């Protein structure tokens, strides 16, 4: 009997304790954001930029301390580009967004949080660094892959993410499309057939670029990964003996875009710092840092410093050749558009 009573008491006190903890923590989290001496910036970015921004934030904090005397704390958030943009629309209070493609920032603009004309706010279509799409193959390149047309051969297993869930994969798709358009004299039906063959060779259609890289590298699936150039270099750096990079004859200039989230910086009073944060991405130091993290610096003179690292002779189309992102998304990736069509029957 006594034991039973004890048991009850134990449970009751446990529950009381829990509710105290919960209410206590609730209060603690409310007061934390009221301090104003220390400027806080939230940079909502996409997956492959983690390493770069970790280094860049350090650089910027030092620069900003020297210039304005203020301390700044930068919080990072990374994820798939599309879902990151969505979280900002839904209430994630980003001061700046640095995403994989302009299309995602346009979506935030449409919700009214970013003022129109953000694309020309910073140099080079607000892309402080660019990249391109290349192939990562296993050492020795047994399947003899050199260009896009090698990917449609029988028995070649391709890994690429799904354009419907991954911004990076849109670049992959468009790069392949651009290649085949050049071969077929822009015949859409022929290009579609080519794309169909290409995606029939796709073994795993991951939801994000990082997921695809992990499928290829960690799980050993597939013969070739269609990847961002910076991702490919990162894999080579991690496993120098296992992989090699193949640059196709035609690819696309992938332009990750940056923007200030106007409605949030107004609210936080952080506009000045946020502008400086993005502006400083174009400084020589930051550009070199981008290059060291395998992004192509957008400033010509810095890019030349990396001419040994990057194949600067690649034939790169841009998103403008597809009529801009809105147009491209409507034609290729919307529901029932070309990407859906090549998977039908």
């Amino acid at each position, binding site marked *: 009997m006594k034991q*039973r009573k004890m*048991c*009850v008491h134990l*449970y009751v006190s446990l*529950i009381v304790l*829990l*509710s105290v*903890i*919960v209410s206590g*923590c*609730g209060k603690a*989290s409310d007061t934390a954001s009221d301090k104003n001496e220390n400027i806080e910036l*939230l940079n*909502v970015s996409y*997956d492959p930029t*983690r*390493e770069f921004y970790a280094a860049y934030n350090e650089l910027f904090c030092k620069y900003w301390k020297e210039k304005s005397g203020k301390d700044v704390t930068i*919080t*990072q*958030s*990374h*994820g798939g580009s599309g879902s*990151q943009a969505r*979280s900002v*629309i*839904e*209430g*994630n*209070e980003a001061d700046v967004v640095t995403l994989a493609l302009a299309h995602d920032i346009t979506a935030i603009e449409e*919700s009214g949080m970013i003022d129109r004309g953000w694309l020309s706010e910073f140099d080079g279509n607000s892309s402080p660094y660019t990249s391109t799409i290349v192939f990562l193959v296993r050492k020795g390149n047994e399947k003899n892959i050199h260009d896009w047309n090698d990917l449609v051969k029988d028995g070649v297993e391709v890994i690429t993410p799904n354009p419907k869930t991954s911004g990076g994969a849109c670049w992959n798709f468009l790069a392949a499309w651009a290649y085949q358009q050049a071969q077929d004299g822009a015949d859409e039906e022929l290009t579609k057939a080519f794309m169909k063959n290409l995606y029939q060779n796709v073994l795993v259609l991951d939801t*994000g670029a*990082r*997921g695809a*890289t*992990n499928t290829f*590298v*960690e799980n050993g699936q597939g013969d070739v990964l269609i990847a961002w150039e910076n991702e490919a270099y*990162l*894999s080579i750096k*991690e496993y120098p003996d296992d992989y090699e990079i193949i640059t196709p004859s035609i690819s696309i200039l992938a332009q990750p875009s940056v923007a200030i989230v106007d409605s949030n910086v107004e609210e936080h009073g952080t506009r000045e710092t946020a502008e400086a944060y993005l502006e400083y991405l174009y400084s020589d130091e930051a550009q070199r840092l981008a290059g060291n993290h395998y992004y192509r610096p957008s400033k010509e003179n810095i890019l030349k410093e990396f001419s040994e690292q990057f194949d600067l002779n690649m034939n790169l189309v841009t998103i403008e050749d597809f009529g801009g992102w809105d147009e491209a998304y409507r034609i290729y990736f919307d529901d029932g558009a070309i990407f859906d069509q090549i998977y039908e029957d």
Partner: protein
Amino acid sequence: MKEKKRNYDQDVVGDGINTIQKVLEPVNGTSNNIVKYMLIGVCMLFLFLMLVLPLIVVIVNALKDGWTVYRKAVQNEYTIKALQLTLLATVSAVGINTIFGLFASFLLSKFYFKGRQLLATLIDIPFSISPVVAGLAFILTFGNIGWMGDFLKNHSIKIVFAVPGIILATIFVTFPFVFRELFPVMNAQGKDEEEAAALMGANGFTIFRRITFPHIKWALLYGIILCAARAMGEFGAVSVISGHLRGKTNTLPLHVEILYNEFNTTEAFAVSSVLVILAVLILIAKNFVEWKKR
């Protein structure tokens, strides 16, 4: 004719004795043993393939680069912060859901009223919802685009992409766990004992404490353990609602994903192993309580 009948009777009696022996000393029956070991064998194989091997994968990969890397990953500032948040969410979820589970299962098993089935099914809804949709539901309620969004913004209350949202999402996905464990046991127990006590004049709390509770304490413990385990490991719903703010709204599972996506596979598995260790701690606590009982 008579002879035959006698034999028949003897057979029945003999069979009966045999069975009694089997029941009383099940260890002695060889065929019984075969079934027993076969069952145990199949179950252990199943557990090994489905549970132990993935666990081994986690441990092997966590220690792949040696002990120092492991310790560094586990003692990382962000790991600790994520751990704190995970514990906070788990404790909240267990507390709230225990209170709810006790009341709801008492209500549904001791009283007959119209719509019981419907109510029981409503409670189960979080099981049927994809965690992703659960997270989305909170966004559509409390987020900028949600119908309570403007109200919250005007009163500068942050729910989604902040700690309260993570706690809410965790409570949501683990909501029915305690109830689910308690309900079948309370239901099987029936309500006659409680009715008798009530007729003898005991008050509600006494009835619960003295009659209902002793029947359900083990089920309650199971429920709490399930709830705690599930709350610690919740990924989908929290992932939608967290905003992935490093050091602020990252729970351990989200931190694991981030590390994995950073190509820090070893660290990712090391942090996963922290979750495994937490689960083991809960298991030890449970065993300790069970042992105390005997």
